[in-house]
């Protein structure tokens, strides 16, 4: 089996487990059903990936989390501004519509969603693959989506023109909100991902 195929299977498996876990935890956090609308792992050209995002350039609230340890990852969660207000109300168990503007509490809600989902992803790795990874403190931003995504890719894109991306979309059915989660393996992580899925054949 070629290295590329092994890598894809490793990433597919891990992405499915991570996204499934994250959506469960997200639903629990907001006490509302969050359906996985998109769940995929792929290799993308950095220019094409960012051009696609920049094409519909909304204002978003995003949260970055660096996950460190045996398999370093970069995590991003974002939602549009109206969505962030609703999520804030859902987390606080307030009537939807209570939060009317993007204040520090609403930004904190998105920040904490990022923390909890990044932790959920880390927990999957620890439980299912016995690797030690954990998130660092989240950073929340409010800016153009194109800008948020570009800054997110920067570190990984410096010495690579093609990067592995794990992408998912969660749809909160009752309140009609779409939110987006991305995971990028940071350099060196791909080899380790390879190994943990197939220790007998993998690892160079």
């Amino acid at each position, binding site marked *: 089996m070629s290295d590329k195929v092994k890598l894809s299977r490793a990433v597919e498996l891990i992405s499915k487990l991570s996204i499934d876990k994250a959506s469960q*935890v997200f639903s*629990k*956090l907001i006490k509302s059903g969050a359906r996985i609308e998109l769940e995929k792992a792929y290799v993308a050209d950095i220019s094409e990936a960012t051009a696609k995002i920049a094409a519909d350039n909304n204002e978003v609230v995003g949260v970055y989390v660096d996950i460190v340890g045996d398999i370093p990852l970069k995590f991003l969660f974002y939602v549009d501004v109206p969505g962030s207000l609703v999520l*804030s109300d859902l*987390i*606080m168990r307030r009537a939807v519509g209570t939060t009317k503007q993007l204040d*520090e*509490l609403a930004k*904190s*809600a998105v*920040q*904490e969603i990022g*923390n*909890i989902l*990044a*932790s*959920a992803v*880390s*927990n999957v790795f*620890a*439980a299912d693959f016995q690797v*030690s990874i*954990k*998130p*660092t*403190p989240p950073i929340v931003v409010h800016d153009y989506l194109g800008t948020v995504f570009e800054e997110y890719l920067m570190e990984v894109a410096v010495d690579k023109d093609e990067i592995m991306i794990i992408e998912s979309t969660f749809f909160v059915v009752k309140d009609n909100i779409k939110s987006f989660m991305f995971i990028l393996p940071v350099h060196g992580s791909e080899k380790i991902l390879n190994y943990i899925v197939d220790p007998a054949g993998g690892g160079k």
Partner: protein
Amino acid sequence: MAKRILVVDDAPIIRLMVKDILQYNGYEVCGEGANGKEAVEKYKELKPDLVTLDIIMPEMDGIEALKEILAYDSAARVVMVTAIDQRESLIKAIRIGATDYIVKPFENERVISAVKKALSES
């Protein structure tokens, strides 16, 4: 007299939620902290009956803060409230001396039962 609790988490929304749960159940929130350094400083200043403590925080994480609080007061009651649901992390915190370990997202009842148990209330 109501028991006094120090609430520490880097997310204002979590501090507010935990504060609401505690106050609703008759506890007094005597202070808040946004990182491990503030947790230790406020513990020394306020001498609360109990601390709720996040793990992933800037400046100083919750595990370091837990160590320092217990070094200052070996009888300190500290309940970890964290999104890290990993055996290694749980065992480490309990070994160092945390009274309980709550995983986010949490149910209100879980927070109250952990606080009651830590304060040895029935």
